[in-house]
């Protein structure tokens, strides 16, 4: 022991010294440092917590932003699709309108064409009628001899007498002068008959007798500005009008 | 050869022989460190814990060498 340098007093001194050092270290190093470490750990934990909260908030904000963006995108795409749809339907409308217009125009054109055709047909018919009447007039003019002329006149007068032919209404046929046109010159008797029977109610004083072979047969009586057509030509004219 | 010279000779030889025991400690420290490094390589997360235990193991292994050294020192400097 002595050779190793171990002696009891020195050992005791060392132990006492160690206990003193322990007291000092425990009281003035470990205690304060431990407390400081605790505080620092808490501070750090607090900071971590804060940063975690901040990060969470940021994540939330990002999420919200993403949501808003997605919504905006969805809306935009909706608008685009709507616009497309509307454009399509508008196009369809326009097309339909154009088609309808075209159809109307076509119809109108068809109607016009129809009318034109009808008119042309009418014209044609008129022409045919005119030609036929002209032919008929010619035939009638050739076939009406004097005898027949007078027969016609007699028929006319007879009709007037028994009232079957109402040539003139009393009220209407009023005038100072009367003009009577015939195809052949009337006989005196006939002139008399005209004056007495036909023109009696009209009160016409001066009666002039005209001869116009163009009327073919019968009489055309003109009182004032009124005309009573009892001629063959007038009848043919009426026939022609009817044929059209 | 006088007695003093023989004593010195014996002390030197004895101290040298005493230190042979350090071989085991050296091998032991090598094995401990090898295992610890392998463990750290496999599991780097546990490096701190492994290091602590490694140092403990090294300390225990080294203690053997220290005993040898103490014996050698005693032979050299203490024993008359």
């Amino acid at each position, binding site marked *: 022991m*002595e*050779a*190793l*340098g*171990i*002696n*009891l*007093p*020195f*050992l005791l*001194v*060392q*132990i006492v*010294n*160690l*206990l*003193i*050092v*322990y007291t*000092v*270290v*425990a009281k*003035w*190093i*470990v205690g*304060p*440092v*431990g*407390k*400081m*470490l605790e*505080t*620092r750990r808490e*501070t750090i934990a607090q900071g971590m917590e804060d940063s975690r909260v901040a990060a969470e908030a940021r994540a939330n904000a990002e999420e919200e932003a993403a949501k808003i963006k997605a919504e905006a995108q969805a809306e935009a795409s909706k608008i685009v699709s709507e616009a497309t749809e509307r454009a399509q339907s508008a196009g369809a409308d326009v097309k339909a309108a154009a088609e309808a217009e075209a159809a109307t125009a076509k119809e109108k054109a068809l109607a016009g064409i129809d009318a034109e055709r009808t008119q042309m047909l009418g014209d044609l018919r008129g022409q045919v009628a005119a030609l036929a009447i002209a032919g008929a007039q010619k035939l009638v003019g050739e076939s009406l001899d004097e005898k027949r002329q007078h027969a016609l006149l007699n028929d006319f007068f007879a009709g007037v007498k028994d009232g079957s032919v109402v040539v003139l209404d009393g009220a209407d046929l009023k005038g100072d002068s009367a003009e009577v046109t015939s195809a052949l010159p009337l006989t005196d008797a006939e002139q008399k008959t005209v004056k007495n029977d036909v023109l009696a109610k009209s009160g016409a004083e001066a009666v002039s007798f005209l001869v116009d072979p163009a009327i073919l047969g019968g009489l055309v009586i003109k009182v004032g500005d009124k005309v009573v057509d009892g001629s063959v030509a007038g009848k043919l004219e009426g026939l022609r009008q009817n044929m059209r | 050869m006088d007695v003093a010279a023989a004593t010195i000779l014996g002390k030197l030889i004895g101290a040298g022989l005493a230190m042979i025991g350090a071989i085991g400690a050296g091998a032991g420290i090598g094995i401990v460190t090898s295992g610890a490094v392998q463990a750290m390589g496999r599991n780097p997360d546990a490096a*701190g*814990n492994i290091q*602590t235990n490694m*140092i*403990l193991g090294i*300390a*225990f*292994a*080294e*203690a*053997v060498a*220290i*005993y040898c*050294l*103490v014996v050698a*020192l*005693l032979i*050299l*400097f*203490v024993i008359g």
Partner: protein
Amino acid sequence: MSETKSKNRTWARWVVLAAILLGVFLFTGVGLGIKPIMPEVFLPGERLSETPLFGIPGLYLTNTLIGMLGADLVVFAIAFFVYRGVKSGSVALKGVSGAVEALLEALENMTEGTAGKWTKDIFPWFATITLLVLSANWLGLLPGVETIGLLHEGHGEHSVRTVAGIQTIWDDSAEMAADAHVEDTHAEEDTHGEEMATDDHGEEHHGAAIIPFFRPVSTDLNFTFALAIVAVVMVQVIGFKALGWGYLTKFFNVKHFFSKPIFGFIDFGVGLLELVSELSKVLSFAFRLFGNLFAGAVLLFVMGSLVPFFVPAMFYMLELFVGMIQAIVFGMLTMTFMAQATQSHGDHDEAHA
């Protein structure tokens, strides 16, 4: 900032280079040709005076006692600065106390990982032992420690010279002088003689050694045994605190003594072995620290005497490392044993070196 830093580094580089060149100049034949001397190695702390301190028989003023006071001073200074730093209310300490705080934080994390809820009881011991041993170990690496001291005749084999007014031992093997003058030896010393200017020869005589004023207290078995005894005693104290009287069943295991005759007896024997192992822990602790540090000191002596320049720097670095490792290991083993003592027995199959 970086500029000044790099400037400092350049400066440090020049200092290192100058130190190497100075070493080459001093210790080789090119320059002064000083031969480095292997100092005399004493296992116990050397007495600086032959009269016991305070009249207590056996207690002398040894150089390790001065080393102990130095280590104490360092720890007290750390305590002062740390306490002042914490009192100033800052969250993080600066300078040396900041380094201490970082060390303590690492140690506390270690303790918490091992000891759990007993950290409050165990950690102060861990911190105390680590800080004290660390400062004791590193103090031994200061220049001048174990080299400046009293001349003591009758121990060594080197002659004494007075160089530039300073008496020193001198390796005279080349110019061995026959006659030796006995001189009064109590004078300041400088073995490596770094301030030596001239070569004037003084008186020479045989048989002198240097007793340094300062020697790291970890190289004294008293210190290491004191630490080991206190540590092991505190392990038992904490064990009792944690488990009450049930802690004793760890050593006197009578639980299965009657129920299982054979295994119960074996358990009892194992418990007694535990008791022995507690005692062996003291020896283990004490000799581990002492052996490492003493061997380190001797290593530095030998290396310094073999290759006087540049190479010892490497070993100083190694000793810096070893000093820290041993301090932490001592504290950590104490902590581990304490943590084991707090757990009820059955799972304490730790190796006991």
